[in-house]
């Protein structure tokens, strides 16, 4: 469905069910050069099992208009504005990669308005190599291939009949990049990841249970790079759950069931 957020047309995929204010809401946030469709399986399941699902296209990405966020903080402002626009008092935030940092920052700001925080494929700091940042700007096809390769761990993912996730990852990246002729959202997203400094501070301010869903073969955000956040969340005194999934960085497509079960067991 489309809604107006900060004056910009914003797309949220609702998992095949209409938005219903009476249900609990899960807001799913994608990573760099992705869009709502990376949450396809998990969105449909949650939407048909009692949840409002809002798998959003971040501003300036895919079907959403607006200025693409230049920082994690800007994106977190957008998440708050999105909840306000839909008059949602309380929601679970689920984020992947860059989206996990956005969800973390938003959760720290929104306090009790966030019921659960699920961080899939996360790390802090989420440093991106200068070479990759440069390639994202000047040779995006090359950078996209690098990211796609680093994000995968198997040549045989159970991603649904007939879909080849390597090719789907490349095609989606190209489509999202093409969707914004004004801004290279690939480069802007990586810069936002690389420059975010508030992770541990945000984790210390959390008021809700937290799930870390980490890919044991993740080369982009290896599990060891999430340990600081895990400790910070534990120190904040909130319930912390860590799920290790036997896959790479793109957990949702490489292990759709395992990712779903981790989310389901955490949210339900």
């Amino acid at each position, binding site marked *: 469905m489309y809604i107006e957020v900060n004056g910009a047309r914003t*797309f949220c*995929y609702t998992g*095949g069910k209409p938005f219903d204010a009476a249900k609990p809401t899960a807001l799913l946030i994608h990573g760099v050069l992705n*869009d*709502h*469709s990376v949450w*396809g*399986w998990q969105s*449909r*399941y949650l939407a*048909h099992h009692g949840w409002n699902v809002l798998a959003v296209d971040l501003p300036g990405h*895919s*079907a959403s208009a607006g200025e693409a966020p230049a920082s994690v903080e800007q994106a977190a402002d957008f998440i708050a504005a999105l909840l306000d626009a839909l008059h949602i008092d309380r929601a679970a935030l689920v984020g992947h990669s860059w989206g996990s940092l956005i969800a973390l920052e938003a959760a720290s700001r929104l306090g009790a308005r966030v019921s659960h925080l699920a961080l899939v494929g996360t790390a802090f700091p989420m440093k991106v190599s200068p070479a990759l940042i440069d390639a994202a700007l000047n040779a995006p096809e090359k950078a996209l*291939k*690098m990211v796609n*390769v*680093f994000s*995968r*761990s*198997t*040549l*045989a993912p*159970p*991603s*649904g*009949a*007939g*879909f*080849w996730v*390597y*090719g*789907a990852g*490349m*095609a*989606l990246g*190209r*489509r*999202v990049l093409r969707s914004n002729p004004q801004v290279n959202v690939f480069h802007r997203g990586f810069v936002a990841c690389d420059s975010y400094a508030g992770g541990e501070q945000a984790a210390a301010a959390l008021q809700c249970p937290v799930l870390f869903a980490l890919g044991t073969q993740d080369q982009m955000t290896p599990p060891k790079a999430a340990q600081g956040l895990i400790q910070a969340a534990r120190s904040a005194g909130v319930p912390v759950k860590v799920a290790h999934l036997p896959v790479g960085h793109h957990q949702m497509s490489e292990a*759709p*069931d395992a990712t*779903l079960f981790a989310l389901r067991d955490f949210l339900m």
Partner: protein
Amino acid sequence: MPGYSDPGFDTLALHAGAQPDPATGARAVPIHLSTSFVFESSDHAAALFNLERPGHVYSRISNPTNAVLEQRVAALEGGVGAIAVASGQAALHLAVSTLMGAGGHIVASTALYGGSQNLLHYTLRRFGIETTFIKPGDINGWRAAVRPETRLFFGETVGNPGLEVLDIPTVAQIAHEAGVPLLVDSTLTSPWLIQPFAHGADLVYHSATKFLSGHGTVIGGVLVDGGSFDWEGSGRFPELTQAYEGFHNMVFSEESTVGAFLLRARREGLRDFGACMSPHTAWLILQGIETLPLRMERHVHNTEKVVQFLASHPFVARVGHPLLQAHPSHALARKLLPRGAGSVFSFDLKGDRAQGKKFIETLKVFSHLANVGDCRSLVIHPASTTHFRMSDEALAAGGIGQGTIRLSIGLEDADDLIDDLQRALKAAEKAAEKAGA
């Protein structure tokens, strides 16, 4: 960065979509000859039917063995996914029927396999879908043929049997300006010779019966989506951008940014028309694909030798292969098909139809039959067989004369193929002498 995470073509041909079977350890892909698959629970059943979880329900719609084939062909083409179907014809029909209904219009190349021409010119017309045929090299013609109801451009990588090379980048650009996708039949080239998505095509299909299978043992087709076409942006495809009552009111373009076409094609066309592939067939095609790179290299090598032989033979009037400078697609083939333009081509004898008959009947290594892309060398007379329903004008537009003979060069010793052709050409020449005596 070659390696497991960034595999090359030859590695993908062996590994894409497959891993040792987790239940048994079987290294080769198991053949899952099962119509249906047991649900873990009622919730699991509902989730599978509603696309909430990946998995297989019923083998008309998906099957684990077929899924490996689909991923493998998609990987080799650089696509987002694929659908295995009963034949190449079924793949073409599935593409068309997913994108349009009665009132739709296709702009297609004149240089098509006879069966494709038949489907478009006769059968789909009966169902209200019109086709305008354009010579593949008539660039202005492609542009001028577009109508408000046009939904698809369609051509073959290399036309059958004249081997006119489709200028995919140019034709794709015209298609995209018109807001429609370009579908390419890549049967005669296979992804080893050209990957049409890299040149701008949006959809690709194969008659897997030919080079993918490679052994003349099965009938099958595979339809692949490159995931590049913007169905929403086009505005011409409500089938993909509006709720479909026939499947949970799904809006396919919202469901998957890059997989909308495949979702609808599987959940409607494959489900309802039912032209599915047997898992046993999928397995045989997978066996073929494992050696595709090796076979294609040999096909091309042998073809070069045979073309050179025929081009210098005094009883041969014309050899229709882009290897030769005189071929109208020579320059385009060098650009788009640097590894070669395939091993299926035609040539004309300097003789009449009776001499052509004598030529074919004298051949011993070449088999006279209606197929191409076999590991064995094949021969046929198109005007009286594969393209017999076409008028003389349509035949001429496709580069086919009454004396045209089509060869499919196999993997035998090239010297044996040349020897076979030499004897048959001599017999054909003598047949003329006898007739004149």
